[in-house]
């Protein structure tokens, strides 16, 4: 076979291979979208990270995944159990309504604090604001965005 025929043949197959290469890239993109969507179902709305905890329960640096309604307090049936001597049984509630987070005090003995300010009526809070329940301080963090959602 002459070299020209062979090279034409190679270029031809390279073209077909390139078409399939493109198809592979597209299918990979679709697959990633599918995975990201699946992961989005059980993705939490936000996270509470324990910044300071003098008694060590919950331990500093631990993270709570948040739902739409989260109760904080000493009772074991709270979403976020804050076992601190200065926390009440049912201390505060953190809710996600519409597109924003709200913090509400449930009539606790020692009060709930948002960025050092006492929570009297429900207060709006944003990412990386600090909530204090008893002597435990917790920071509201973004939920981890799954990589390559876009």
């Amino acid at each position, binding site marked *: 076979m002459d070299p*020209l025929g062979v*090279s*034409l*043949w190679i*270029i*031809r*197959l*390279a*073209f*077909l291979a*390139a*078409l*399939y*290469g*493109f*198809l592979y*890239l*597209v*299918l990979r*993109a*679709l697959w990633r*979208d599918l995975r990201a969507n699946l992961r989005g179902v059980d993705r939490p709305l936000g996270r509470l990270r324990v910044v300071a905890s003098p008694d060590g329960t919950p331990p500093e640096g631990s993270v709570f995944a948040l739902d739409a309604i989260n109760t904080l307090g000493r009772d074991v049936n709270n979403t976020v159990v804050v076992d601190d001597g200065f926390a009440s049984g049912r201390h505060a509630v953190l809710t996600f309504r519409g*597109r*924003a987070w709200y913090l509400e005090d449930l009539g606790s003995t020692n009060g709930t604090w948002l960025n050092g300010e006492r929570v009297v009526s429900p207060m709006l809070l*944003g*990412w990386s604001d600090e909530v204090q329940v008893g002597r435990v301080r917790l920071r509201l963090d973004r939920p981890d965005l799954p990589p390559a959602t*876009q």
Partner: protein
Amino acid sequence: MTGLAETADRRGPRFRRREALLLGGVAGAITCGWVSLASTVAGQPSMGDPLLLLAFLGMLGAAHAVLSLAGSRSDEVLLPVAGLLMGLSLLMMVRLPQGLVVQDFGPLELGLAPLQLIWIGVSLTAATVVAVALRSDLWLRSYKYTWAAAGIALLLLVFAFGEETNGARLTLRVGPVAGQPSELLKILLVVFLAGYLADNRALLAGRATRLGPLRLPPLPYLLPMLAMWGIALAIVVVQRDLGAALLFYAVFVVLLWVATQRLGDLAMGVLLFVVGAVVLYAFFPHVRGRVEIWLDPFATAQGAGFQIVRGLYALGRGGVLGTGLGAGLPGVDGHLSIPAVHTDFVFDALAEELGLAGALVILALYVVLAQRGLRIASAARDDFRALLAAGATLVVVVQAAIIVAGDARLIPLTGITLPFVSYGGSSLLANGIVLGLLLSLGDTRLAAPPPPQAIGRRERLRDAAGAVAGRAERVIS
């Protein structure tokens, strides 16, 4: 605070990384094809004249840049997929004899490939403009009856003044510009159907009228559907445009099914189709002729069946890996082996030169378009957008399915273009607009839909009348 920062950020330019990557893939593949074609034609390794190729890649890059700069948040797979189809189209148009279509622009005489490149540019421009500029769909949904009226007017214009090409009356000529309005008609149809079905979904799904054993939607809501069926029949009878009629009717039935979620509607649509098809077959010779060619093209291989037979030979010559670009038979010595190879039979030409492997890639691209479009529909924020996105997707994919099946003799051949691939300005422009619509509907920054109207139209009219009366009373007192 964070909310504000987010909205400010959402308006700025945003690099569409995945789109850039995929467009890189398109550029690589089309360049490879270009080298393959030029080398085969020249008989030695060569680049040919890369001007058209560079212009095409520039257009794709420009569309990508505009979308990125406008900060579009829409799907990033649609543009590259359509881009690859357009690239394959350009390769085929460069490869076919340039004298197939010639148009004069003053001293400039353009052949097939430059013309197709211009239309690709127009199509990409339309897609980008619609994707970037369509920020609210209010004017689409509020004027649905205007769109329907415009569509019917367009149809009547073609009925009255249309010119016949290949036995079908579908070309409308205004001065030097000739176009096929059925391509634009399909967009109007989808917009109207989306608006109408979204408004009357509940009523259509309800079954109030009883007709013997059948339970039908209330009569006033049944009429538009019968009208739709009648229009499809009229297109076949008057315009002899079987492809457009089949496309319109199929899209209508599927959208109806999507809106009412009743399998019975789909079954009834198919039943009406069968009835219509039998009646048309019995009474109209051009329909009967198409079916007979389909059943046995070799009986009239030198006459009516010539086109199909040549198409089948081309598919056979291609084999699994194809003859290679430029080495196939469509038009070696100046005259075409398949009539209409640049429009209706472009799939056969591509399948001959790229083989089964390449043909499967083309089909897969349409499947990907369907997936992306339906994904946009399922993520849409209200019924109108969901139906519009689904309809826009269907119109492209069903059209591709109809013509590919016709080319391969799976169904009777109906003359219609292969979206993004066939030669033709109307087709490319219309499909560009559809692509833009999908991109725009997939954009998360599109204005929020108006709140759904819980009260019916009659109550709303009464309320309006009451408000006017109240104002009049106040003026009098």
